[in-house]
């Protein structure tokens, strides 16, 4: 069966002066996959992530999303192309309520500049937003200020915001960072459910090995800016290169 390629990265290279943070990385992600990007600190995964998202200009290489090159695209252009993302640090709008946060995450995809000024004040999104917070079981916090939520709840809200516009591809930047064990299980279960229900493709950067191994369908390991291993979680676990990279690094 032929599945379509959602994200394709070719020969991505990024130098910082003499340092090659990312060096000739190429990979593809198919529709519905959950791809993990792992590697020791300084292996270049964050740089790679930022290059894909247009936050950093790559020294060379191309990024294609659904077969279209996105060179020079800004973050909001990418988002309109159906790319959602979460952030490593907490990234909600702290002085806005939970429901407002979620509506904000969807409103730029509805209507035009004109209807957003003269149309409904919720852009017709209240129902969809309530469904989304219900899905992440934040319903009881609907009208709380996002900034008053616990760390884990804000992480969930961050994820919910990334999904609100119905993206085909979501890039998750260390979703497990600083989240407690119970919450982690819950987050993983929600992500897998969402993936099954909507066929959304995920690319996940993560330090937490257990989390990545149990969440992802495929894993790419980076070390010193290059791909040193690629495969199913169980193959990665047994791969000697990977063990060396982590223990040696």
């Amino acid at each position, binding site marked *: 069966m032929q599945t379509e390629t959602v994200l394709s990265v070719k020969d991505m290279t990024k130098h910082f002066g003499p340092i090659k943070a990312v060096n000739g990385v190429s990979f593809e992600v198919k529709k519905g996959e959950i791809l993990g990007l792992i590697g020791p600190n300084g292996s270049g995964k964050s740089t790679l992530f*930022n290059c894909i998202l*247009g*936050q*950093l*200009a790559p020294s060379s290489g191309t990024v294609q999303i659904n077969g279209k090159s996105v060179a020079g695209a800004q973050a909001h252009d990418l988002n309109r192309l159906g790319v959602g993302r979460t952030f490593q640090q907490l990234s909600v709008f702290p002085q806005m309520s939970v429901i407002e946060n979620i509506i904000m995450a969807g409103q730029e995809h509805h209507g035009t500049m004109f209807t957003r000024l003269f149309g409904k004040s919720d852009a017709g999104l209240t129902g969809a937003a309530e469904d989304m917070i219900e899905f992440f079981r934040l319903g009881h916090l609907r009208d709380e200020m996002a900034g008053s939520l616990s760390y884990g709840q804000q992480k969930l809200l961050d994820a919910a915001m990334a999904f609100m516009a119905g993206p085909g591809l979501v890039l998750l930047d260390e979703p497990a960072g600083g989240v407690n064990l119970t919450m982690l299980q819950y987050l993983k279960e929600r992500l897998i459910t969402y993936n099954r229900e909507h066929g959304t493709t995920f690319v996940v950067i993560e330090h937490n090995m257990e989390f990545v191994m149990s969440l992802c369908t495929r894993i790419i390991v980076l070390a010193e800016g290059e791909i040193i291993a690629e495969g199913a979680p169980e193959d990665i676990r047994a791969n000697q290169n990977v063990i060396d990279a982590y223990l040696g690094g």
Partner: protein
Amino acid sequence: MAELLQILISGLSSGAIYALAAVGFTLLWQASQTINFAQGEFVMLPAFFVLAGMTLFGLPLWAAILTAFVLSIVILGAMFKKLVVEPMLPHGTMPLVIATIALGLLMKESVKEFYSAQGQPFPSLFPQHVMNVFGASVSVQDLCNLAVAFAAIIALQLFLQRTRTGRAMQATAQDPRVAEILGVDVKRMVMYTFLINGALAAIASILISPVYLAKFSNGETLGMIAFIAAIVGGFNQIRGALVGGLLIGVLDNLAAVYISAEYRTAIPLILLIVIIMVRPQGIMGTSEGRTV
């Protein structure tokens, strides 16, 4: 030709003084992300320390200058850092910008109310006579100002590059977190930067006041020119601020002679807008990739 040389030299001379203010401005920005809107008033004030020292306390010129120098470092350096910048940094750059605007206003109005609203003659450190160089009449004062300002900038550059403290300050400016890991006392380095800015402001003040009279409103133009010089030069390097300052000094003098005197002050402003539109990284700056 002779006229052009004359304009060039007096332009470079005032430009070098602008550069002192611009360099200080850039240093503060690098070290603590402080955009000092009071920088012009920082240059205006030390001259009044000197005048107050001479008229109120009867000090001889040299002693008054020395006192003003120390006062500038303490008040415009240390106290500014401790009392204004430090309590406000946790709230982000916006309140600090507004606070420095208010501080500038406070300094300006205080001088106006408590000293004088009139421009005050300021004793010159250098002989006033005019030399003849290749047919151009060049003021000795201009040449001396140029020399002193350049000496100050070169000394600063040497300090930053050759000494251990200087290099630690540069590391702090580039990335405070990395500097901290390398064992640099980041807080102290930031404080040094503020002290240096106070000293640079004092030098600029003492050099420029004999030329333009010491007046409470001097800071308006000086501050603007310091910003513009810093932006023209790239906003993040000393070399750039120097080039920016010199360029504005020369352009300003050229404009006064060859373009209408009415729009003389508009030249740096137009330069600023053009630079931002055409080459936002500044003349000397390099463009960097966008970052998060």
